[in-house]
């Protein structure tokens, strides 16, 4: 197995991060429409897997597909143009960030939660027939493990021993719902219960992800079937840009008052649940905001900072690398 090149992994992670910083700016400036789900916080998981893919390997992505696209080698200019809705974007402005398609890279995303499961299986099936030794990777969140087609896909992959790696990026949230509140079992248990080898890995440790993913990829390439990686990571920018939950945590004085009025009326009006239950409702909401705040732009859980820390020994090289990445992305921004 090839050793992880931490410098290269960091470079790819940083490329994604700096690219998404541009995206955030442009979105805030109103240049990008609709929802914008960033992958900030997932870079180590994505890099650890994607950076060891080969020509002919395929990628099935969810609504946070940008980092994987960037690291897979899709031209960032095309991506940014797509987000900006240009006719010469990656998808001619037809898709946007939730519907990214690069045939050349066999990479496709979907805005439907869970759809990357069946897509990964289909890509793997095609690999088995047409490109032996090639694999497919499906990325998705822990919330997607409650979606029927994802569960079906796991069984199908295992029953057919297909070369697909399921990578669950567990940020503990499904939009505003702590996934644990609506999920009756641990993620590994359900993958195993459907016949998959399931391995847990620290999603902020890119070398650990690389090494576990490397084994899974190797098994798949050898025809030894699918695997399931469960990687913990943080959601550093909320569910999407402008997430009210996050805004409420960041600037409570500005964001909470307009919400508070109706809530207080809901607490006070006659007819409804008992007061105790209503107070619990309020406290539930506050704890959701509070908990979401905990990881918001958390530096402890930022894979970029964590990885950077390991490279600080060679400060000069680090500076050069970071300057190079920032230069590349400035160029991207200019050309988009």
């Amino acid at each position, binding site marked *: 197995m090839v050793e992880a090149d931490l410098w290269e992994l960091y470079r790819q992670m940083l490329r994604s991060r700096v690219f998404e910083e541009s995206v955030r700016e442009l979105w805030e400036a109103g240049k990008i*429409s609709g929802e914008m789900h960033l992958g900030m916080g997932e870079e180590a998981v994505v890099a650890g897997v994607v950076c060891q893919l080969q020509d002919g390997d395929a990628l099935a992505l969810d609504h946070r597909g940008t980092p994987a696209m960037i690291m897979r080698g899709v031209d960032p200019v095309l991506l940014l143009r797509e987000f900006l809705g240009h006719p010469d974007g990656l998808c001619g402005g037809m898709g946007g960030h939730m519907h990214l398609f690069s045939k050349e890279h066999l990479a496709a995303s979907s805005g439907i939660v869970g759809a990357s499961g069946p897509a990964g299986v289909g890509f793997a099936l095609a690999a088995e027939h047409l490109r032996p030794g090639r694999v497919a990777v499906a990325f998705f969140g822990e919330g997607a493990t409650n979606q029927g087609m994802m569960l079906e896909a796991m069984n199908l992959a295992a029953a057919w021993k297909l070369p697909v790696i399921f990578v669950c990026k567990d940020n503990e949230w499904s939009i505003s719902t702590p996934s644990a509140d*609506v999920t009756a079992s641990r993620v590994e248990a359900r993958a195993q219960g459907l016949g998959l080898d399931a391995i847990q890995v620290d999603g902020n440790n890119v070398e650990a992800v690389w090494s576990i993913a490397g084994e899974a990829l190797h098994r798949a390439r050898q025809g030894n079937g699918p695997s399931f990686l469960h990687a913990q990571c943080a959601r550093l920018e909320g569910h999407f840009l402008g997430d009210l939950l996050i805004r409420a945590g960041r600037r409570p004085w500005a964001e909470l008052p307009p*919400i508070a009025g109706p*809530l207080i009326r*809901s607490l006070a009006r006659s007819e409804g649940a008992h007061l105790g239950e209503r107070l*619990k409702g309020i406290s539930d909401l506050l704890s959701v905001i509070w908990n979401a705040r905990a990881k918001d732009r958390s530096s402890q859980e930022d894979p970029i900072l964590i990885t950077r820390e390991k490279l600080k020994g060679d400060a000069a090289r680090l500076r050069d690398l970071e300057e190079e990445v920032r230069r590349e992305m400035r160029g991207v921004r200019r050309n988009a």
Partner: protein
Amino acid sequence: MRKMSFAEAIEDALCQAMREDSRIVILGEDVHAIRRNLYVRFGEKRVRATPISESAFAGAGVAAAMAGLRPVIDLYMVDFLGVAMDAVLNHAAKVASFSAGHWSAPLVIRAGCGGGYGDGGQHEQSLWGWLAHIPGLTVLVPSTPADAGGLMLAALEHDGPVIYLEHKLLADYWLEFLGSGGRKTVSYDIPPQGARGAVPDKWEAVPIGKAAIRREGEDLTMVSVGASVHRCLEAAKALEPQGVSVEVIDLRTVSPLDTEMILDSLRKTRRLLVVDEDYQGFGLSGELAAVALEAGIVVKYGRVCTEGTIPYAREKEDETLPNVGRIVRKGEEMVREA
């Protein structure tokens, strides 16, 4: 009379109904946050957050309705009904028939629909005409705050499955949630009459199957639903200086259609222009043509609909969805050729 936003009207009507009828429960993803006021008021058992398991909780909604509850299945976007379609097509819609009318499934499936804010083709579909194809379903699409509340009440009182679609350009919280996200840097072409308006002090059901004439006219009948009704009204104004008198019918209920009101208008104007944000082929616009022809009324006919997958890019999207310019042009064409 009070004034309310479209979104407030729905919530207010729902709240009134929930106070009066403890069988009403709301199930859906993130409802503790999205329906937070009802969540606090009625508690977590009546406003219950689900996993991302639409086929399970929509299917559960059908059975819960059969067993005496009045579930409101809160579904984010109607696009996501794809994963739960079996519950609608093969269960909700068929319980009454299969049981020869002995049993019914009075549930409401509530979802956002429609585009105009650049979210791409898997999040902006309308699909009301598609759903109306399935016998046994009632499909409601309000275009004003008063109807939004009144039709929600009607849906909750109806003894069968109802699809209730709220257009995201009218419901401000959806637009804020999916489009603006606190940004002041984006704007939308929101129909003001649809987004805010007068509502009754106490909600009463707006009858299912009754359309509304939003503007009277002699030369051309525009039939529409949802946000497009307001586009029609704008187009009608634009056509006025050219001496074209336009009648605008807001269907409000897509299924069952108010054929009587439609036919009365067509007998007068002899011109039917369907403006439908749902896909053009094999849907509402076709059905209205059949309604006219079946009644033996000879009309000039045109349609302005969504013809393909909705593009992400804002300008492309605006051209794809029915817009005032397209409606006016088609209207002119229909009158000119007469």
